[in-house]
């Protein structure tokens, strides 16, 4: 068995004798579409870097941009599942608004009168209620869509309008603040980051996981005697993956706490400040950690679990899924429950960043989220889409918007550019597909 498998990699690598770049990439089994998106993102970042004389690529900017994109990226992973199963969710922005306002009302109005301000369990209770509320509202909409058969466009359009109204009713028409002091850390910032040491540990854990996954997949394939990647491709993938992770940690750790904040911190802890002030590495911001966690969990759900397989099967052929005995209605309802939970996570980050609930929290998210999913390769025809693609899509949009604002272009110009990118990205994709088939 091992002998058979052992010869396989050379066959794969040695196909057609000559090795073009295309062959090399194919040997690594990398998704070409994702590879193209990573390239596009790199080009955008480098382009703005050059245009701003390198300023754009400073750690503080890269961190801010990733934190700003976090809310949209998180919901986009759920939108992939919804669009793959031939539905749409227009209510996500308003849902973020409702849940964000719920967090704020709980922490600014309810808790002070009941359990007290900034209690250690306060933010956990708030978060649990928010997640439950998200699952419930998502499930409610999903029930109407899956079991009663109202088109998702209509149900969630209702949600888009209705939940925004609920935000006003909940808040009495004003901003509600402040949030719990621990809850605020979910939103990132110097204090809401992992710190230098923890960030390195996280980076190393991720590297170990990458290597383990590569090894495990190779071992599994060998066990069954399937063709495996050539060894050099495995090593290359592992190396690139680890270098990227460690590089990202290094960037995050090169952002130091601003001097004022660091000296406040020193005074509060009673640490004597060394000359030149205390040097504290910020490290990976919590929102970014949450995005990474959500991305891993959602990728796992989409590709390694029965639920994900059923969602993709339904999107590819609803009749086939039904005839195969899949409980399609429950599957669809679950995609919306998931969406509600992701909205609650996103709302926590968005409202923590603002330290309160505003009336327009999450406004317009639905469009950015759908755009991120679609730029990331999710097809409205159903059955096609990837979680990493959606996150890259969100990053591409956020990089463009942030870069443009960095160069002094206001938000109308940003919208124009992002909209062009959206249509061009999808247009290129359709063109490629037609040429390919």
């Amino acid at each position, binding site marked *: 068995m091992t002998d058979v498998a052992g010869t396989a990699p050379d066959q794969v690598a040695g196909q057609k004798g000559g090795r073009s770049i295309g062959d090399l990439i194919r040997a690594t089994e990398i998704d070409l579409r994702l590879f193209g998106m990573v390239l596009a993102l790199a080009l955008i970042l480098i382009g703005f870097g050059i245009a701003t004389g390198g300023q754009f690529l400073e750690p503080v900017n890269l961190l801010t941009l990733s934190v700003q994109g976090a809310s949209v990226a998180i919901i986009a992973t759920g939108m992939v599942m919804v669009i793959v199963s031939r539905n749409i969710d227009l209510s996500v922005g308003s849902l973020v608004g409702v849940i964000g306002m719920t967090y704020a009302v709980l922490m600014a109005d309810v808790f002070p009168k009941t359990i007290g301000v900034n209690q250690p369990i306060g933010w956990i209770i708030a978060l649990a209620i928010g997640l439950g509320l998200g699952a419930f509202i998502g499930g409610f909409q999903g029930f109407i869509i899956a079991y009663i058969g109202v088109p998702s466009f209509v149900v969630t359009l209702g949600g888009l309008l209705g939940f925004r109204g609920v935000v006003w009713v909940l808040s009495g028409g004003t901003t509600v603040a402040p949030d719990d002091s621990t809850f605020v850390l979910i939103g990132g910032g110097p204090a809401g980051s992992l710190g230098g040491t923890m960030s390195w540990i996280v980076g190393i854990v991720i590297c170990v996981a990458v290597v383990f996954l590569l090894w495990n997949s190779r071992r599994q394939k060998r066990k069954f005697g399937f063709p495996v990647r050539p060894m050099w491709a495995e090593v290359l993938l592992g190396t690139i993956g680890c270098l990227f992770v460690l590089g990202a940690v290094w960037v995050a750790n090169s952002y130091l706490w601003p001097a004022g904040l660091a000296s406040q911190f020193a005074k509060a802890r009673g640490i004597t400040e060394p000359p030149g002030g205390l040097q504290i590495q910020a490290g990976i911001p919590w929102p970014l950690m949450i995005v990474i966690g959500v991305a891993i969990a959602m990728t796992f759900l989409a590709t390694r679990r029965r639920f994900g397989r059923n969602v993709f*099967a339904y999107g590819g052929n609803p009749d*086939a899924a039904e005839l195969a*005995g899949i409980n399609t209605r429950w599957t669809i309802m679950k995609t919306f429950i998931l969406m509600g939970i992701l909205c609650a996570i996103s709302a926590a980050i968005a409202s923590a960043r603002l330290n309160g609930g505003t009336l327009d929290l999450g406004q317009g998210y639905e469009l950015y989220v759908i755009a991120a999913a679609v730029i990331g390769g999710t097809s409205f025809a159903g059955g096609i889409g990837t979680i990493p693609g959606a996150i890259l899509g969100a990053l591409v949009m956020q990089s463009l918007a942030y870069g443009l604002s960095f160069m002094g272009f206001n938000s109308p110009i940003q919208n124009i550019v992002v909209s062009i990118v959206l249509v061009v990205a999808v247009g290129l994709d359709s063109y490629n597909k037609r040429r390919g088939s």
Partner: protein
Amino acid sequence: MTAAEVRTVPEQAPLVEMRGINVAFGGVHAVRDVTIDLHPGEVVGLVGGNGAGKSTLMRVLSGAHRADSGEIFINGDSISISNPRDAKANGIETIYQTLALADNLDAPANLFLGRELTNRWGSLDDDAMEDATRKVMGRLNPNFERFTMPVKSLSGGQRQAVAIARAVHFNARILIMDEPTAALGPAETAQVRNLVRQLKTEGIGIFLISHDIHDVYDLADRVSVMYHGRIVDTVSKQDVTTDEILGMIILGKKPGDVTQTELEALELRG
């Protein structure tokens, strides 16, 4: 000749018996009071014109559609089939005319659709599914190698093979094949015919729906002819000619009941 007289083994309870099945779509009575049975190792051909109710009748057995009335017996036991899962639980597998494949997924994912293999953590075991698929496809289509491509990119015959593999892999006792050779070339059709004969020897009962009289005549032990939702007659193959079956399909009458004028009209048409 009535259906009861032609049963090959009348003393034994049939593998499947559908009794008094009625299905109506709005005002259209698609299946009217149909009774049909199938024995182990037997192929029953189900023929009839478009809209005769063959597919609808079989969709009732495969759980894709609920009958308005009627009973289904498996080995003499009354069972209720209200969805495809119930049918599969009773060993009834179906190869649909549309193949019912999820085009965006690969062959192993389609083969195990709705019945995915999982590891001890409940996660999909794609490697085990691919391994099983390689084994069953090795029987049906030994040259098949595209195990990780979406089935969209496969040829008609390969797609058919995936659909058949799905039915065969799960040890069906009862197989429903709806136009299994409609999309196939001559070589692939021969392959499917060989497969049907092989499954027959394994004791599987097969309902074969086909437009192709010769296909049915070649493979079936008995032929049931449907006309406007009713069974015209169920006959043993050796008792009829293909022309007589054709007459039943077109006129909706048993050979003995056909008048001379009708026969002449038929010959003029054909």
